[in-house]
């Protein structure tokens, strides 16, 4: 088989060198009763040609997604990724290699991690960055656990405008630790500030807020952080649409203590939900409690600048059950993907694209509201996602859009059941659209 180079003759030689007459002698420690005595019942090997045909046929059972620009975000955003990034990611040295435990053979990976950490530090205005947790949801879970370690308290306040999958994941991560999870209700598209004041007390370890939130709304993190800090609770900012950082104020300027951010918008395709990547960003003094791998700068024995994984004593291979997290393999290749993406976008690119996202979303909303079929039910500041009520049947809306090859917006009721959201959808607009398309969307929906 083309992936298994050793020939039968070579294997015979090797068995001879080992000193056994048959391969089965090497398996003598396996009890006979548990050995598999038949062939695995899976399909026989397909040739590469047959395999490609088979899988392409399966793929064709999906819609032709490339041609369908999504008006749907809700945690997975289609942004434009320059071809240079995709080309660079083809380099085998980036993707066939292992975790950079041997820094002398992994400066490519380590320097890339360091550069990404530096970019995110500047975007978030936070001191230190862990470049890779699997996704925003697990990063939020890890951030919540981190806040428990830092404060030794047992209550967590969770905004109900955090992405439902993220909220579910936070619950799952906290379940074994006997933590009281208090839900913070929303009103008019943002969290209820006065409710927060009532819910906060001396036992609150952290307040978790997503901003921009699930409805796209931009929360008042400064005010929330002041409240939280009064009760010595940490403010954890969850960012699901990282493109927002291009024009919005940085969490570090708003009193945020820990950022759990999905980096999917920085150079990762939708890929049916994964793999994405997330970062954690926080203050210098929390470095020993943050989970995940981090790259640091040092010198080699000749005094040359070099990068290594550092603060390793937090990790599972050294601390075992006392580690800050069990994390080992993360999503490092996507760190490189984002690093390349951010290098290509640069200061101006991120700003301009972020601005374009915001402008285009607001353009679409204003045009939709000019028709008779849409109504604005909530009024809150948003980045590139907004709620809007459709006066007709959501099924019709979907069909109309699908027919014109647009992926319809999210029906909010699927995640927020209740009559008040019966005909409400969550539109997302990114730079992949153009004005003609947005006008056509308005046209077909009016």
């Amino acid at each position, binding site marked *: 088989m083309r992936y298994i180079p050793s020939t039968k003759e070579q294997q015979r030689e090797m068995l001879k060198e080992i000193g056994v007459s048959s391969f089965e002698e090497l398996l003598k420690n396996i009890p006979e009763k548990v050995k598999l005595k038949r062939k695995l019942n899976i399909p026989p090997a397909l040739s590469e040609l047959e395999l490609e045909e088979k899988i392409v046929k399966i793929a064709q059972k999906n819609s032709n997604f490339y041609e369908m620009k999504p008006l749907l975000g809700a945690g997975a955003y289609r942004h434009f990724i320059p071809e240079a990034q995709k080309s660079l990611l083809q380099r085998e040295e980036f993707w066939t290699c292992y975790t950079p435990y041997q820094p002398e053979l992994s400066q490519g990976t380590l320097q890339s991690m360091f550069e990404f950490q530096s970019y995110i530090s500047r975007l978030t205005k936070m001191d230190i960055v862990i470049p890779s947790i699997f996704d925003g949801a697990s990063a939020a879970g890890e951030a919540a656990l981190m806040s428990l370690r830092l404060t030794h308290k047992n209550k967590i306040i969770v905004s109900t405008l955090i992405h439902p999958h993220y909220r579910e994941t936070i619950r799952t991560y906290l379940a074994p630790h006997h933590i009281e999870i208090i839900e913070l209700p929303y009103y008019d598209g943002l969290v209820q500030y006065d409710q927060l004041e009532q819910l906060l007390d001396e036992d609150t370890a952290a307040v978790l807020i997503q901003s921009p939130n699930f409805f796209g709304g931009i929360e008042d993190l400064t005010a929330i952080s002041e409240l939280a800090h009064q009760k010595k609770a940490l403010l954890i900012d969850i960012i699901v649409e990282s493109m927002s950082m291009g024009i919005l104020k940085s969490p570090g300027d708003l009193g945020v203590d820990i950022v759990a951010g999905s980096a999917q918008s920085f150079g990762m395709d939708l890929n049916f939900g994964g793999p994405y990547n997330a970062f954690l960003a926080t203050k210098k003094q929390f470095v*020993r409690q943050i989970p995940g791998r981090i790259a640091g700068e040092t010198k080699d024995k000749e005094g040359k600048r070099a990068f290594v994984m550092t603060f*390793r*004593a937090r990790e599972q291979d*050294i*601390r075992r059950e*006392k580690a800050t997290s069990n994390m080992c393999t993360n999503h490092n290749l996507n760190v490189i993907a984002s690093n390349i993406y951010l290098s290509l976008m640069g200061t101006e690119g991120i700003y301009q694209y972020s601005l374009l996202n915001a402008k285009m979303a607001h353009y679409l909303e204003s045009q939709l509201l000019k028709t008779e079929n849409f109504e604005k039910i909530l009024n809150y500041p948003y980045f590139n996602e907004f709620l809007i009520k459709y006066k007709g049947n959501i099924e019709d809306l979907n069909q109309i859009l699908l027919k014109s090859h647009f992926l319809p917006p999210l029906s909010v009721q699927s995640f927020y059941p209740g009559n008040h959201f019966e005909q409400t959808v969550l539109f997302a607009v990114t730079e992949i659209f153009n004005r003609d398309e947005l006008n056509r969307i308005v046209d077909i929906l009016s």
Partner: protein
Amino acid sequence: MMSNKIIEELYYSKNDEWIKVENDIGTIGITDYAQDQLGDIVYVEEIKKGTNLNKGDVISTVESVKAVSDVYSPISGEIIEVNQAIIEDPSIINKDPFGKGWFAKIKMDQPEELDELMSASEYSEYRKE
């Protein structure tokens, strides 16, 4: 392997801590063997003055690049003094584990516990390569 230093008049624990007794005050640290095993110590966890300890409680945690080790108190009592110097510069422990690298002074409330510890020669036997 080079032989590690042992000081005669100290008591030693199985976890490589030493204690120097003066009246009812015990000064605690880690042995030369312990610091050698750890390698360059880069971090020492804060020790709180006034804490009441039982024998075997964790006083602090020391961290090197490749390992982490808890430092246990070999006796019960109250921490009456803490060596801030090692918190600020953990390398002192590597350089002078029996002297300037001390961790804390404890006012012993059960001096009989010293009988459970090893003498210098017993510890030397224990840690012989």
